[in-house]
């Protein structure tokens, strides 16, 4: 590998040969990125491809295991965000780091030293607004602002620190369409003034419409670098999903049990008609969804972050009310949420109590711990949960064994009826290969026993591996897709027109 091109100031950022490993996961393998000044650079990739990790390295939040970084032609070491800020790099995270009760000006001033002169910050912000066409009221409290305006505050924070390279992580995921257009237009003009923008995204349309250059990451490697004008949706999808190598993981031919899968021939377990769902803050996330999920099938759910699948899954599991429309579902739906430590287990309590947790809200009188203990033991046996015993705190188990216990609890045979149902969300996140295979086997077994299984995974291959049909959620719309990597991938990225023509 050559040294990052020395002295070329027109290259705003060079990342070369970056390796990064987290425990057993190799997040980045010799990844590279070259951002020219005066351009908007789209960084594309599936969930888990390493986009955010790469940019966290560029912002000094993580240190690479190997590789070199150069900013505006000078080779640098980034030990903290402070270093990156000093070099003119600004980052807008997906989750904002703002203090809600403080004003815009206070948030912008936060982190400085010495005397605080808010009136100066305010006039500087006004000046910034005038210069950039960025509408911001410096004296309003951040919590009163819309999400789009809060995002502008984050950008303003970076600009006030003289950022010449802006990294934005999925900036449009939280914005309504009109605001997204607005933002992208602004980013364009910012770049045209000689600055650089890195846009992390998994929306193809965005990349194609705005980017001068596109870099695609897949599984930690840079797999494609192309000029925006030369890029096609097909080429980008192929690069992101690795169409050529898709066969290495999943057989493209559906297994026989999938072919006969037709919802109409099954007993319907879930039925949605024109269902509209909103998140806890009231923002509509899924609009007019209609579908049927039957007994004895695994239906996959696919979608990119913020697309609405989170709300869809929770509504199916009965953890989120429907705003309008109809959603029929069984009374008891098993639910395996992705953050099991927060939403599924009592970490410091024994296994038995974690098994007893299901249905605790409606139980009356005494708890038959002996019965539940016996059930726990039998669940541990059938699901091969490795634990010191049913009385051990669940904290002492490995992640895989914790997950198996949660799955066992939610699939509990006692509750199994003809309309048994379970919703699982990223059920194998953080598990090793062996535990992953075991969880997959359990889900298949549940399906064979007649349960309706709804599976979401941010790893599209996992969905394709297990499901017989896929519901793709894109920007609040739910559409059904067959087991076809290409079709699902395109729908997920909002490029359906290319696929269906």
């Amino acid at each position: 590998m050559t040294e990052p091109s020395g002295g070329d100031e027109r290259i705003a950022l060079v990342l070369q040969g970056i390796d990064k490993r987290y425990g057993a996961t190799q997040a980045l393998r010799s990844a590279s990125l070259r951002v020219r000044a005066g351009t908007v650079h789209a960084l594309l990739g599936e969930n888990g491809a390493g986009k955010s990790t790469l940019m966290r390295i560029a912002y000094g939040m993580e240190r690479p295991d190997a590789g070199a970084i150069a900013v505006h032609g000078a080779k640098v070491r980034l030990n903290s965000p402070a270093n990156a800020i000093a070099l003119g790099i600004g980052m807008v995270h997906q989750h904002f780091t703002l203090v809600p009760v403080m004003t815009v000006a206070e948030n912008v001033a936060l982190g400085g030293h010495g005397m605080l002169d808010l009136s100066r910050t305010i006039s500087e912000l006004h000046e910034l607004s005038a210069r950039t066409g960025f509408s911001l009221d410096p004296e309003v409290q951040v919590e009163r602002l819309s999400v789009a305006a809060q995002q502008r505050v984050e950008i303003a924070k970076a600009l006030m620190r003289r950022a010449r390279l802006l990294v934005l992580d999925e900036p449009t995921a939280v914005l309504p369409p009109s605001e997204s257009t607005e933002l992208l237009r602004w980013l364009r003009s910012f770049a045209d003034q000689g600055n650089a923008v890195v846009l992390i995204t998994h929306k193809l349309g965005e990349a194609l419409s705005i980017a001068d250059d596109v870099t695609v990451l897949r599984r930690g490697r840079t797999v494609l670098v192309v000029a925006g004008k030369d890029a096609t949706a097909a080429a980008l999808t192929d690069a992101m999903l690795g169409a050529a190598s898709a066969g290495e993981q999943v057989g493209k031919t559906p297994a026989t049990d999938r072919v006969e899968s037709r919802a109409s021939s099954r007993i319907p377990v879930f039925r949605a008609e024109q269902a509209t769902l909103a998140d806890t803050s009231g923002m509509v996330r899924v609009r007019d969804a209609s579908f049927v999920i039957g007994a004895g099938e695994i239906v996959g759910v696919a979608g990119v972050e913020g697309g609405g699948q989170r709300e869809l899954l929770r509504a199916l599991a009965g953890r989120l009310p429907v705003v309008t429309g109809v959603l029929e579902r069984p009374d008891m739906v098993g639910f395996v949420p992705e953050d099991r430590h927060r939403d599924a287990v009592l970490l410091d309590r024994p296994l038995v109590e974690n098994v007893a947790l299901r249905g605790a809200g409606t139980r009356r009188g005494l708890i038959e711990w002996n019965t539940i203990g016996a059930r726990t033991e039998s669940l541990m046996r059938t699901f091969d949960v490795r634990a010191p015993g049913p009385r051990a705190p669940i904290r002492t188990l490995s992640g895989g064994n914790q997950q198996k216990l949660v799955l066992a609890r939610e699939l509990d045979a006692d509750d199994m009826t003809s309309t048994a149902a379970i919703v699982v969300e990223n059920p194998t996140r953080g598990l090793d290969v062996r535990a992953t295979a075991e969880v997959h086997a359990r889900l298949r077994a549940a399906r064979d026993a007649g349960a309706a299984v709804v599976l979401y995974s941010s790893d599209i291959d996992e969905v394709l591996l297990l499901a017989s049909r896929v519901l793709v959620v894109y920007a609040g719309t739910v559409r059904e897709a067959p087991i076809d990597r290409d079709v699902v991938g395109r729908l997920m990225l909002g490029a359906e027109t290319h696929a269906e023509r």
Partner: protein
Amino acid sequence: MSAAMREAYRELAVVAAVVVAIGGAAALLLLAMGFPIAGGLTALWTGSFGSWYVFTSASLVRAVPLMLTGAAVALAFRGGVLNIGGEGQLLVGAAAAAAVALAMPSATVTVPLVIAAALLAAALGGALWASVAAYLRARYGVLEVISTIMLNFVALHLVSYLVRGPLQEPTHVYPQSATIVDALHLPRLPGAGRLHSGFVVALTVAVAAGWMLRRTAAGFRLVAAGENPAAATSAGGIDVRVTTARVFLLSGALAGLAGGVEVLGVTFALYENISPGYGYTAIAVALLARLDPWRVVATAVLFGALEAGAGAMQRDAGVPSTLVSVIEAALILAVVATQSFRSRRQRPDVGEHVQPVDA
């Protein structure tokens, strides 16, 4: 079986550690102050466990209110409610019991009924006092830590008003209520010196509270809601707000009951300083018991004995009784430190969680 054995050994080790800590801390302090170590420790022992009479009349009598308030704190903390208003709830309970006992003409109704009514009033009073903080938390999200402290002071002033106003003794000289007639005193336990039957009440309550946590669905909901509200809601379908409000009231009721038992069993009248901070010491009692009402029985007796022994230490060896507070504080800090280190050690598969989710 071996797991149970290990648990038992660990329990034993904790007890041993506590004993050593107390003895060590006391000895060190005595040494530092230039007091006679042997004399001080001997007095501490004879004044608490030295004889059956001392044990029952001094140690256990002091343990009764601590057992009740300790159980109250244990339940609340387990349920995720930081009720440090035990003192105020106890005071209101004491006032309610005194009011009922003084108002009822004992001749007309059967005595046990009046006693029961007075104790019930105490529990209700405590629950009522807690309900203010419970409501503020449920409705406005007010931190109960702050609101219960406020309510402790309000209760203090309430009692101060009562013993100078409506409940003042007939001569209107002393700031205290009239003395409750002998018939309404909680009967003493036979062969146990000044120990009254409130001990049985406290013991029953603590055992029942522990049993509730272990065996009942309601108790389990309480534990789950306190342990992880998000999982209790999502995985257990538990209404955490309702559960939390209930445990708050229950905790207040137990603390109130402590006040009632103290009035009918020990002081026989209401006055301002009826509680030497039982509601606060209860926090230490409950923490040392690792928030288990059954263990509270033991730690309440321990603290009762310490306080009884402290008095003796001062009388017989001239060692300041306040030394005991230092020992109590050292105990809490030791428990806090060991628990925190233990939970830090027991954090498996860390790599799995620190890994950022690439979106």
